[in-house]
């Protein structure tokens, strides 16, 4: 059995890679993918905690399922909007869509 710490390290890495990507990438799709990484790390966390720490129940698994579903819905909307941004700006780079500034 792989100890829980290993999974934690993996999920933490995923999480921070996601955060880093979200902050540094300038491409909308890449940002979306970074966010998905974060969500995946969360899913991993829930599944692992459920399986290794609280094997008698299913709450974490259910949470994972729902979180996957919700993530897909979010992605669908985000993609639709990104396509729209592309149609308006002919670009999907954050830099080029900053019409609005401080």
């Amino acid at each position, binding site marked *: 059995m792989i100890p829980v710490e290993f999974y934690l390290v993996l999920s933490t890495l995923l999480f921070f890679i996601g955060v880093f990507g979200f902050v540094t990438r300038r491409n909308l799709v890449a940002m979306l993918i970074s966010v998905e990484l974060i969500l995946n790390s969360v899913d991993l966390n829930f599944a692992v905690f459920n399986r290794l720490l*609280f094997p008698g129940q299913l709450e974490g698994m259910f*949470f994972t399922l729902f979180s996957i579903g919700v993530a897909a819905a979010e992605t669908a909307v985000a993609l639709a909007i990104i396509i729209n941004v592309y149609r*308006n700006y002919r670009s999907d780079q954050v830099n080029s869509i900053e019409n609005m500034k401080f």
Partner: protein
Amino acid sequence: MNIDYSQFLNMIPEVTLMAALMIVFITDLFTAKKPGEARNRNWFNPLVCVLMLAHIFINIWPTEASTAFGGMYMTNGSVGVIKTILAFSVLIVFVQSREWLQREDTNFKEGEFYELVLATLLGMNMMVSANHFLLFFLGLEMASVPMACLVAFDKYRHNSAEAGAKFILTATFSSGVMLYGISFLYAATGTLYFDDVMANISATPLCILGMVFFFSGLGFKISLVPFHFWTADTYQGAPTTVTGYLSVTSKGAAAFALCAILMKVFAPIVEYWQIMLMVVIVLSITIGNLFAIHQKDLKRFMAFSSISQAGYIMLAVVGNSAMSVTALSYYVLIYVVANLAVFSIIAAVEENNGGVVNMNAYNGFYKTNPRLAFLLTLALFSLGGIPPFAGMFSKFFVFMAAANGAQVTTAIGATIYAVVFIALVNTVISLYYYLLIVKAMFISDNENPLPTFKSSYSTKMALAICTLGVVAFGVCSIVYNWIHAASVM
């Protein structure tokens, strides 16, 4: 199998809302016109408003505290009150949105607007009623995903799509962060029920880390500093009506949910979140105010103003007592009427003058449109906390609620007073920039001010409701007493 559909009777607000949503959806589906088709649907907006009104009246007196679905869903008086307040704000938004929805490029998707708004409202209802992190998360997402569609509603205007992209990305990001926090709480306590989490939580690093992540995730939704980056762009780019909706309803629901969770779930580690909350509040109020001063675009301006208002809303929670919930709900209600009044006027001006949202254009506004200018002044005064308008009452009660938590003469009590003081100093700053608009309208000269225009009946009606609220909700103590009575029920 323990299945009993009578449990749905405990969630009448959701059921009626769902019914309204379905009626709107089906009606729209079979009467909607395609782009370019000349079909008149004047009756549609009134129908939706009447449905909403019915929904409010059915649920105006909150039901008694009860739970459903094995304790995942929970309702009590204060939850009922905030649901009514949210529904009320949606009603105003609907009334006010009519003028915008009559426009050529939005008219054919009028129905979608109502459906999406109702869907977000349903999500918010679930969110504030949640007693389990899963239901909470689902409600939150249900509130924020359709919201992104609303933000990007004017899809052929560049800023709207851009705002939508920014909103959905930050919303997803924030829910990711929040879920990460929840997963830590799950690891620490082995359950996701609020009550059980509370019973098992303790001041371990894991719990505190989970709380911080959770808090920052929800901080995004309420747009507290330092999680506010999306706010200005989104508010500016979104259609004005949606901005109004976003600024009051979504923020109010999230603030209430955060309040409930902090006070209920994280009660055992109150010292930690109090400090954190206070830092965030001070930052929000101050930074929101300082940035607002320089804005020339009214919607952007209101965005920063709303950031600082978020700080005030959360200030009530610092007190950590029953008074906090009441004060928060009351503040949200007042904020709803005042802010929606402002946005109604901005929207009316925008619609009638080809998209003008610049503050300079408002110079001399009083000379040409005295009534709108006057109402805008009232609303801004209310936002600034000037009596006899309702804003002052709500601010005062929030301060009272905060100071209520500082009764003992300890370091944290002194800190709370210091935070209240900073907030108070900031009301002066906020008054300054609200007065800048008043100045523009009443005092500044303008060669060619905005021409006199006649706003539509729906705008007038929305403004009438809002103004009535701004004037009466404070002075007539019955509103506050109603919220209080329901909250302690």
